[in-house]
């Protein structure tokens, strides 16, 4: 006698689970242009590396003699696998079984996946393609009662934000609890056309405000612009590629340091174009992303959240192979001013860097918080104040390069001024409490009103003040430590990354990450 027959039954049950939902539902899912959950897992992970946990969980039916006659797999598939050789937890909804509804998932599996990530200190990737947590209102009749709602495993979901990298991929129509699982992450993605996200879907919304399509209500165009989701991609394959790339910059948990990548670029590379990257005419804008790509290791810049809070640019990159967080302003958008949206984006980004011990490089061209009625209505100062708090609470090495403007409270937020951090100024640096162009009329009102030729006087005062604003005068007083040749920026940033590497500290951040 042996246990061979039990192993045969185990394999049989695994086979039943691999069928996923009914054939017609799997076909419909593929016809909608979507991969099945098992295809997704295979595409995301290194070949053959998936080790499923709870592979035979589901709902079985037996005949009167106790023989298994039917089986419906749980619609939540999870386990461990590798991405680029590093072990991760992967957890995916199976939309072909009950539309991915959590009431068919065996919710303990969701809790287990989150707990496994936390306690084994492994990053977790959620492949979300399901409806809300409670299922339909039909469950009222099935259960004969209602309940007080609770989000299963939310303690671990929240704890994971401060412990391990979490990626949320919205890969279908994602509502309620699924939507919350997508955004309670460090990085989230939607696939154009096949992903939609909402608190409640069109049938529920239609009862309140009329008919609306899924895409109109919660397409990627909406959620990557409001910042609920970080980025949108063209295909599921691209979503998996970006997931792997995002994770490559981060440690497996806060108890480790970000791994150094391959050293692919010369640390002494000097880009000649940088000497003319910033126009001498202060009213003219320039492409900040060109500067970023020029100074970091070639092709290493991974931008996050390009469609949201656009006056701020955030992303991960490498300097001499060391992963760093890059923060910058985009002068094309309100001159680079921090809006409410940009402030929120920067807060999350600084928290990300602080959580995972990434040194920050800040390329500064910040005229201040955005001014005007719309900005006031958006509560910009509250969001901006949170950004400043995040920045002062961060405990990672920091280097700021004053590319052009640093004005007012937001400009002062280019670094925590109380710490000895690295700071360089390009000759184009233009700093102070208020840009000359913005404050001239107010400051010299009396003189201008008394003048016979206010326009000529205005030009004369402006010329006078512009001379005083030279960064050389600021450096004379040691208010900026060094003015550098822009072409030396990469060598200096690589030096910073190498000096910062041994200063990085493992362990949980003093401020827990919030989504």
């Amino acid at each position, binding site marked *: 006698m042996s246990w061979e027959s039990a192993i045969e039954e185990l394999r049989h049950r695994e086979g039943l689970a691999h069928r996923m939902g009914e054939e017609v539902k799997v076909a419909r899912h593929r016809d909608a242009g979507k991969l099945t959950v098992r295809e997704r897992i295979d595409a995301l992970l290194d070949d053959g590396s998936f080790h499923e946990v709870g592979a035979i969980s589901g709902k079985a039916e037996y005949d009167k003699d106790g023989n298994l006659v039917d089986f419906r797999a749980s619609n939540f598939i999870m386990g461990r696998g590798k991405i680029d050789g590093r072990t991760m937890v992967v957890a995916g909804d199976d939309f072909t079984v009950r539309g991915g509804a959590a009431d068919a998932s065996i919710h303990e599996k969701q809790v287990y996946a989150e707990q496994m990530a936390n306690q084994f200190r492994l990053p977790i990737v959620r492949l979300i393609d399901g409806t809300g947590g409670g299922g339909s209102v039909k469950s009222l009749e099935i259960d004969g009662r209602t309940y007080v709602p609770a989000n299963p495993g939310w303690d671990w979901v929240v704890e994971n934000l401060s412990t391990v990298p979490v990626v949320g991929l919205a890969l279908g129509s994602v509502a309620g609890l699924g939507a919350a699982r997508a955004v309670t992450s460090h990085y989230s993605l939607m696939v154009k056309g096949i992903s939609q996200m909402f608190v409640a879907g069109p049938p529920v919304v239609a009862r309140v405000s009329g008919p609306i399509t899924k895409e109109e209500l919660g397409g990627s165009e909406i959620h990557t612009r409001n910042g609920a989701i970080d980025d949108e991609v063209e295909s599921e394959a691209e979503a998996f590629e970006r997931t792997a790339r995002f994770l490559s910059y981060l440690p497996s948990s806060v108890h480790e340091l970000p791994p150094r990548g391959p050293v692919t670029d010369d640390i002494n590379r000097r880009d000649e174009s940088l000497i003319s990257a910033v126009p001498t005419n202060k*009213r*003219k804008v320039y492409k900040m992303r060109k500067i970023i790509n020029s100074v970091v290791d070639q092709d290493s810049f991974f931008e996050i959240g390009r469609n949201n809070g656009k006056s701020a640019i955030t992303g991960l990159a490498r300097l001499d192979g060391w992963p760093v967080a890059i923060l910058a302003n985009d002068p*094309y*958008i309100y*001159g680079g001013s921090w809006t409410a949206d940009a402030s929120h984006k920067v807060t999350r980004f600084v928290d990300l860097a602080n959580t995972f011990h990434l040194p920050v490089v800040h390329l500064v061209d910040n*005229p201040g918080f955005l001014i005007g009625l719309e900005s006031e209505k958006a509560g910009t100062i509250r969001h901006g104040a949170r950004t400043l708090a995040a920045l002062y609470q961060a405990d990672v090495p920091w280097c700021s390069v004053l590319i052009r403007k640093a004005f007012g409270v937001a400009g002062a937020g280019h670094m925590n001024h109380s710490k000895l951090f690295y700071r360089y100024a390009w000759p184009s640096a233009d700093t102070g409490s208020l840009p000359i162009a913005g404050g001239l009329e107010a400051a010299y009102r009396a003189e201008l009103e008394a003048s016979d030729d206010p326009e000529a006087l205005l030009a004369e005062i402006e010329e006078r003040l512009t001379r005083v604003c030279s960064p050389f005068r600021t450096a004379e007083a040691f208010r900026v430590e060094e003015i550098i040749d822009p072409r030396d920026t990469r060598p200096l940033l690589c030096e910073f990354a190498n000096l910062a590497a041994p200063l990085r500290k493992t362990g949980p951040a003093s401020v827990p990450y919030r989504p």
Partner: protein
Amino acid sequence: MARKEVKSEVAGTVWLVETKTGASVQEDDTLIVLESMKMEIPVDAPCAGTVVEILVAKDDPVEEDQTVAIIETS
């Protein structure tokens, strides 16, 4: 042929209109320059094509996300 709306990413005032109806443009060519936050902010062509409509004139106020021109792609 497809009509592509050219939108402003910022609120501001039209400073210069640098194109004409019927002009053939390449991707990233500057069509309109806005003044916003005392800066000259270009609104560039998102794709190559022919400018079929210009919906703003000098000194017009422009809202964020407002369509300022239409390009017909070939």
